[in-house]
Every structure is written in structure tokens, then in C-alpha cells.
């Protein structure tokens, strides 16, 4: 048994450069480079580095190579990094995993030449298949993880980005809300509006929900709380951007907005706010 598996390591060691050139040829025609985003030299240096680590791991591992063992830790580290960079460059999971799977063909070609058509060859091919498949799946898994991290980071960025409080006029603030009002973000919105009311000594704050597609009871509750908190500080809130479908839905839901000034458009709300401050816009 040990003799057979050594042969895979042996073949890798002896024919590494031939396997590399064969592999590069397959990658050139295969799925990994269809994207065209990678330079030939990059693929070549990645492939060369991987083959070196792969060959080293085979040499140090036992009769039945197992990628989870310590002999493979450098290979795993390399693939972690590889998957992450492919995920960031926008490659698909299949394109990423094909990097590993495409090694099968040049490797099997070499095995066939080295061993002839025999049972030993079949055994060796089977062993290599299992090994490469598990490495390929490992890459996919790592890729997924990297994508998830990217998404989590973007979510965090959006929470920070999405709460601009703007001054429309002296003493009149506006808060245009866009997108989903999940609780975490609404908390940030509420706090920044209240702070800005203090900073600007504002009497009126307009909360515009034109960009909020769904107003359910949780969103309504957040809005009502913000209005109540602003009122405690002596400022009045106007909610604008209530479209017909939102109005109909709020009525059926049974949410009571009777104590809040609401307007269909931001322009209407601004008119009311100016009026309350004793101002009006006239044409010349």
C-alpha cells in the first residue's frame, strides 16, 4: 500500500514541471480563465506555487493522503487565501473550484504514462480523485465564507452611510429615509436625528419615507417613538412621503398616526414647516 501511494508523490516530484505545463494548458482552455480577468503570468505563478505545496504535502503524508491532516496545512492556508482573492475579484464558486479540479487531467495523464493500464493505475487515480475533489470542495466552502464576510461588511457600511440629516431652512431639518428600516439602522437614524435637532436648534424635523417600500407595525412603531422623543425636546416632526398604497395599508393595519402631521410629499411638508415658522414662499 505504502509503495503505491509513494508513487503518486514520486510522480509529482519527478514530473512537476511537465504536469504544470499540462495543467496551464487545460486552464487556458477551461473555465478558470473564461473570465479573462487574470493575466497568464498570474495563473502560472499561482499554479506553480500550489503544485509545489501539493507535492510537498504528498511527500509528507501517509499512504492514504488526507487533506485534513497536518501535512496539508500549508496547502489549506494557500487555498484560503486563493479563495478569498477569487471571491473579491468576482469569480463564481465553480470557476474558483475548477482551479483544483482541472489538475486531474494532467495528473491522470502522467499516471497513465508512468504506470501503464493496470490495477495500480486505477487505484492511484481513484485516490487522487478523492483527494482533489475534497480540495476542490474545500475551496468552494472557503469561497462562500469570504463572500459572507464581504456581505456582512457591506451591511455594516450601509448602516453607517444611510442616515444623512439635512438642513432645509433655518430651524427646519429633513431626514430622507431609504430602504429597509430594520431595527439596528432605525436606532442610528433616531439618535442622529435627535442629536441634530439639538445641534441645529431646530423646531421642525421632516421625516421623509418616500424611499421606504414597506411600512409595517415595527416601522410605524419606530417612527412614532422618534416623533415622541423629538416632541419631548420641543421639536415637531412631520412625516412625508406617504404614498396611496402606504396610506391604505396603514389604515388596514390599524396603526394610529392621528397625533402626527403627515403629508404626501416632501414639498407639502416643507410648505407646512415654513408656514409654522412664519415664512412663506412667494413668486416675484
Amino acid at each position, binding site marked *: 500500500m505504502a509503495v503505491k501511494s509513494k508513487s503518486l508523490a514520486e510522480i509529482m516530484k519527478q514530473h512537476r514541471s511537465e504536469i504544470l505545463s499540462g495543467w496551464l494548458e487545460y486552464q487556458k482552455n477551461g473555465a478558470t480563465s473564461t473570465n479573462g480577468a487574470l493575466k497568464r503570468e498570474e495563473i502560472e505563478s499561482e499554479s506553480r506555487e500550489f503544485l509545489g505545496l501539493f507535492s510537498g504535502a504528498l511527500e509528507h503524508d501517509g499512504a492514504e493522503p488526507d487533506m485534513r491532516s497536518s501535512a496539508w496545512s500549508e496547502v489549506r492556508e494557500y487555498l484560503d487565501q486563493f479563495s478569498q482573492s477569487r471571491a473579491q475579484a468576482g469569480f463564481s464558486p465553480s470557476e474558483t473550484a475548477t482551479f483544483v479540479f482541472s489538475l486531474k487531467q494532467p495528473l491522470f495523464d502522467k499516471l497513465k504514462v508512468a504506470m501503464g493500464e493496470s490495477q495500480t493505475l486505477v487505484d492511484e487515480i481513484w485516490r487522487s480523485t478523492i483527494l482533489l475533489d475534497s480540495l476542490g470542495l474545500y475551496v468552494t466552502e472557503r469561497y462562500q465564507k469570504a463572500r459572507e464576510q464581504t456581505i456582512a461588511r457591506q451591511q455594516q457600511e450601509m448602516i453607517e452611510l444611510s442616515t444623512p440629516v439635512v438642513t432645509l431652512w433655518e430651524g427646519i431639518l429633513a431626514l430622507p429615509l431609504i430602504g429597509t428600516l430594520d431595527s439596528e439602522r432605525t436606532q442610528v437614524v433616531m439618535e442622529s436625528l435627535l442629536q441634530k435637532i439639538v445641534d441645529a436648534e431646530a423646531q421642525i424635523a421632516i421625516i421623509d419615507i418616500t424611499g421606504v417600500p*414597506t411600512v*409595517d407595525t415595527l416601522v410605524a412603531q419606530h417612527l412614532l417613538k422618534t416623533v415622541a422623543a423629538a416632541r419631548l425636546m420641543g421639536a415637531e416632526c412631520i412625516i412625508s412621503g406617504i404614498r*396611496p398604497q402606504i396610506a*391604505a395599508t396603514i389604515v388596514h393595519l*390599524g396603526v394610529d398616526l392621528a397625533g402626527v402631521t403627515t403629508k404626501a410629499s416632501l414639498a407639502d411638508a416643507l410648505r407646512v414647516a415654513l408656514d409654522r415658522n412664519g415664512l412663506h414662499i412667494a413668486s416675484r
Partner: protein
Amino acid sequence: MPVERNETLAVNRSEDVVLVRAKTRDWSISLGFTIVEQTKMVTAASELARNLVVHAGGGTVRLETINSEQRRGLRLTFEDQGPGIADIQQALRDGFSSKGGLGLGLSGSKRLVNEFDISSTPGEGTRICIVRWK
């Protein structure tokens, strides 16, 4: 009732509620619902999906396009293995809330759809089925 297509989504975190709303909107649009009908169905779906997260720690939503006597509709089924509701009449009353909400999610959703069916066994879970016809 013939089901034209169906899809089941897992709802375990508040981020999943966003996906339920997006799917419900897509399916409502493909059924030709008006903007008001779409918004009502999406809002009801949002309430009931959030209930899965808040009250049961997660559950599933099944979306189905159904067909009956020449009309088509969207049926959503919310299922969980949570604590269940002991008193359904009380839970359906406006303003009743066990978790500090407005207490309008369940009763309000019922008013936003054409059919509303709820069954619950304490200790086993809750199943709510809503339908909106085109």
C-alpha cells in the same frame, strides 16, 4: 386547490424577513397585483415573518401561486415549532402584545388579506395561512 408553483424559505433572523418581503413582492407582481394589493400582501408577510423570528425563534414560509374557479391568488403559509399561542382570540385583539410591539401585527395582517387561517397548539407550534386573490 391546484398549486402552480411553490417555494419554501427558512426564516431565522431579521435579515431573512427582508428576503420574505422581496419574494412576496416579486410573486405579487408576477400575479398582476396592483401596487396597493402588492403593498398589503408584502406588509402582511413582513408582520408574520417577523413573528416567526420574534416569538418562535425561527420557522418557514411557503409561497404558492394557487388557482381556483378561474381566479388566481398568492397563498403564504407560516409555520413554526415555537411555544404556540394559548389564547388565539386574545392574540388577535388589537393592541395585545406579548413582546412590547404595537399589538397590531396579527390582527392587522388579517385585515390586509382575503383569507386568514390560524391554528396553534401550545408547546408544539403555530401555523398561519393567508391568501390574497387577484
